[in-house]
């Protein structure tokens, strides 16, 4: 893994400022630690020499207070950087997907995992690993520089031993890498088992298998423990080895200092300073190693998120969208991603003001055609030109908010309550909504849960009525409605067709009967009957 991926700053430029600020604060914290070593060494020297130590005591207090202040600042800046980075990545990803055609997005399952957990995994990376990384680079350099001034011999010892730390870590890592990877994979499986069995608990209970799983859970958790401990034992051993290495290195410095002190070739102050500064060169590096696993997860998540944010193969799928109520399709061909067979082949269609219906059997590509006209899929061949589109899909999107919010989505925010009621009346929902205890402010469940498919569709149609888009695309606008409802919607579409270009995919004969134009999609060829 890369400890820091510079693409992060390119893809999410808004995180530049917080990341730099966090780096600066972490570096300042390191500098304060060095300053503290100076002040402490001075204080001890003065106290031991029975000199006036008030001044050096003042410096110690200042150094501790600065460290305390910066320490508090790191917590705060770390927390806000963490959210800013994860929020910027998450938003960037979703924004890109919202502008991309179907072909430019992962499937829903993968997309939601990436956007929710993937982006959250970045938080510990930003809050903990980044400051540790900055400190790991800055503090050793500062410590060694200070040592060079104070006591060059100690500096030489530190410079000679310091590279051993990463080298040693890399060696341990190299020899155990394959083994570690294999174990991590096994671990993931074992750890995943419990989650899997838990999520499946209702299914297991339904088939009377749940109690038998209790012993399996116990056994697998036990295996998980043993496997995890095998992995951890190795990790802990290497970390102990690194600590020992650092301790030995500091001991070498101390021995050199001690010998020169007894010999009289060094002052007490310089000696104290050398042994206070030497450890400062080692611990930040070990800290980076200690945060490595949190970091590795975060860095993996970042590179995965960046992959989806960076590849710019497709630009936005939505057509420019003029105010013209017309759709012109020429020589359109389309095959689903990963498939050779064309579901739509060489289709041409011109629709203006009025109602155009598209019919065809299930699977003949009616919905796909509407997706293409709306610019939500990339055609394999041919062109699509359309005015600004409002598209009522089979399951219109409803947020888990109020009916007002659902109707305002994608529409002008200044819609008045009268306009909303009028739209509801036109789709025959006004009485139902009026009977609800909170009327327009009634909350819909998550993803419109609780509405019947027919009610959901009518809400979608009401939203289309409110939209000012010149082109309306409707997928099965009467699918879930009874005779009365279909008649109402057919009448509504006739009215709307006076001012807009409407293209509707449908099975309903009454809708076909009133249409200006009828397109029938066959299995392989599309025939147009005017």
């Amino acid at each position: 893994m890369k400890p820091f991926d510079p693409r992060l700053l390119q893809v999410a430029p808004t995180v530049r400022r917080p990341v730099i600020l966090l780096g600066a604060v972490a570096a300042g914290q390191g500098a304060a630690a060095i300053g503290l070593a100076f002040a402490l060494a001075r204080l001890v020297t003065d106290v031991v020499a029975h000199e006036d130590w008030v001044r050096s005591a003042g410096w110690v207090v200042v150094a501790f207070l600065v460290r305390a202040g910066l320490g508090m600042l790191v917590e705060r800046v770390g927390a806000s950087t963490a959210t800013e980075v994860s929020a910027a990545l998450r938003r960037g990803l979703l924004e890109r997907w919202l502008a991309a055609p179907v072909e430019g997005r992962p499937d829903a399952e993968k997309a939601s995992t990436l956007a929710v957990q993937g982006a959250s995994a970045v938080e510990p990376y930003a809050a903990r690993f980044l400051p540790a990384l900055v400190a790991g680079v800055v503090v050793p350099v500062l410590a060694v520089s200070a040592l060079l001034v104070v006591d060059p011999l100690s500096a030489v010892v530190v410079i000679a031993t310091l590279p051993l730390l990463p080298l040693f870590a890399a060696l341990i890592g190299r020899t155990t890498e394959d083994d570690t990877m294999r174990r991590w994979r096994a671990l993931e499986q074992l750890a995943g088992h419990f989650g899997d069995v838990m999520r499946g608990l209702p299914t297991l209970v339904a088939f009377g298998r749940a109690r038998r799983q209790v012993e399996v859970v116990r056994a697998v958790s036990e295996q998980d423990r043993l496997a995890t401990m095998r992995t951890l034992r190795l990790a802990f051993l290497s970390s102990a080895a690194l600590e020992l290495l650092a301790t030995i290195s500091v001991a070498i410095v101390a021995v050199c200092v001690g010998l020169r002190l007894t010999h009289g070739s060094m002052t007490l102050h310089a000696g104290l300073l050398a042994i206070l500064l030497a450890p400062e060169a080692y611990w930040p590096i070990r800290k980076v190693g200690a945060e490595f696993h949190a970091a590795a997860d975060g860095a993996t998540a970042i590179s995965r998120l960046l992959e989806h944010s960076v590849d710019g193969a497709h630009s936005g799928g939505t057509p420019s969208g003029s105010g013209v109520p017309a759709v012109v399709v020429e020589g359109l061909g389309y095959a689903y991603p990963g498939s050779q067979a064309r579901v739509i082949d060489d289709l041409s269609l011109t629709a203006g003001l009025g109602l155009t219906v598209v019919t065809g059997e299930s699977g003949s590509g009616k919905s796909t055609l509407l997706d293409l006209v709306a610019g939500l899929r990339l055609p394999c061949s041919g062109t699509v030109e359309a005015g600004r589109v409002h598209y009522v899909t089979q399951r219109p999107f409803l947020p888990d908010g109020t009916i007002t919010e659902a109707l305002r989505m994608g529409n002008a925010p200044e819609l008045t309550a009268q306009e909303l009621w009028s739209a509801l009346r036109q789709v025959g929902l006004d009485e139902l909504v009026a009977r609800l205890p909170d009327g327009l402010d009634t909350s819909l469940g998550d993803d419109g849960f609780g509405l019947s498919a027919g009610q959901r569709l009518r809400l979608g149609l009401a939203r289309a009525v409110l939209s000012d888009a010149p082109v309306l695309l409707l997928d099965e606008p009467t699918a879930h409605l009874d005779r009365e409802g279909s008649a109402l919607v057919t009448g509504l579409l006739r009215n709307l067709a006076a001012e807009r270009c409407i293209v509707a995919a449908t099975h309903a004969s009454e809708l076909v009967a009133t249409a200006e134009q009828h397109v029938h999609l066959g299995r392989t060829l599309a025939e147009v009957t005017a």
Partner: protein
Amino acid sequence: MTTIGPALARRDGAVAGVWGGLALTSGVALTATSGWLIVRAAERPVILTLLTAIVGVRAFGMARPFFRHLERLRSHDSALADLASARTEVYAALVPLTPARLGRRSRSAVLTGVVDDLTDVVEAHVRVRVPVLSAAVAAFFAIVLTGALEPRAGLVVAVEMVLVALTARVGLVREREAQPLLGAARAEVGRAAELVARHTLEVQAIGAAADVLGRLDRAHADLADALRRQSRGRALVTGGVLALTGAATIVMAAVATGSDLSAGVTALLVVVPAALADAVLPLADSVRAQARAEQSRLRVDALLDQAPAIADAGTAQPPSRAPHLVLEDVTAGWSADHVDVGPVDLDLPPGRRVGIVGANGSGKSTLLAVLARALDPLAGTYRVGGRDATELDTEAVRDLVAVVDDEPHLFASDVRANLLLARPDAQDEDLRGGLRVAGLGSWFDGLPDGLDTRLGAGGRGVSGGERARLALARAVLSRRPVVLLDEPVAHLDHATATQVMSDVWNATSGRSVVVVSHRQEGLDMVDTILDLTPTRKD
């Protein structure tokens, strides 16, 4: 009521705390003796007089990583052992509460939450108990040893440590206050992001990108706010410890200069507070882990602290394998004090197909839960083959009923194992037959490894329609005479829903079927429809 974590592990935690304490003490001793050694060396004594201290420094230097290693092994091992037993206990405790007590929707999200919460609770062993014990041990040694050299110095360290403990306590209160806010903010970010990720096309279709991104931005702003609030707790502990260390250093210098101590001992005492800071700074992490664990524990306990929805009543066996199910004046509710449905009558002779429809909240799923013996009726009688269901063995009644719900789970295993759970003694032949009847014939033929193909997390992805059909195949294989379908096509598009429902009727021919749906697809095939929409009383 179940509590998490056995007493046994507490002793292991104590042992790990002692090892950790010895590691920290070694660290403090290392710094202190080094200070003494340097000052003493500057007085240019005969080197031999320094030997004891040199040996001490070396010993402490080696002891620190050694003890820390022991502490880590011990604390992680005992935490993992705790995790294993907590998982087993909680799983077993959840069985009688499933499904009726897991909430009405998104049960899988509730259960995933339990998995994460348990990890948080157990992690507190490593991240709270061990560091706190270690710090206490190190503080104890520091107080005793400095006290032995100069009693007032011991007092200084003692007072400093008490103040550190108080600071940590205040930090904990701060972190606790932020936890509920943080949980709510995280959940909202998840919801906002998931809604967009799962419905990208539908959002694009209505040009609502700005609306959904606006909601996401608001959620992010709330989360940032909650995290800033939370960071105050940790910041307080970090800043407080460092400030106290500074103060203690000065007081110690005053004490040391005021006493008649050798130069070496004076130096030793002055550096002790700074050395102790390393031992107590990890308390900032502990405070956060503790607040989170408390919150997680509350959630798990609230879930487990419920009475099962079925009173363990009878032991009698149902009179027939093809029972006549009857609900007479049944009312039922998900909690004992709230009626969600009823009174309702339902007659389900063998082979009858009933559709249950009705507005949201009219109690469709509640009624199904009663039929499945997941929920006791609050009033009225549920008769199975003429006998009151509460007199019969619950497991035996459940054995008559196969449930297909709207979020059937596919286990991370192969197709075979996913089907065998419905009937463990089925042969491969039967499994293939079940898949075909459920309309998965051509899907199965396209699988690379047949019944050995892996499904679920990490395996082959399945579409919503395939998932619903796999659940149907399980119901078919179980040979249970009654099939209950709860919104089987809720998440499918119209065309797929129509096909799935047609497969449902093919696959369940000859059995009693009750299907709950808020959609029309397939309801034309039922014998009767029960509409639960309440008639208005106003």
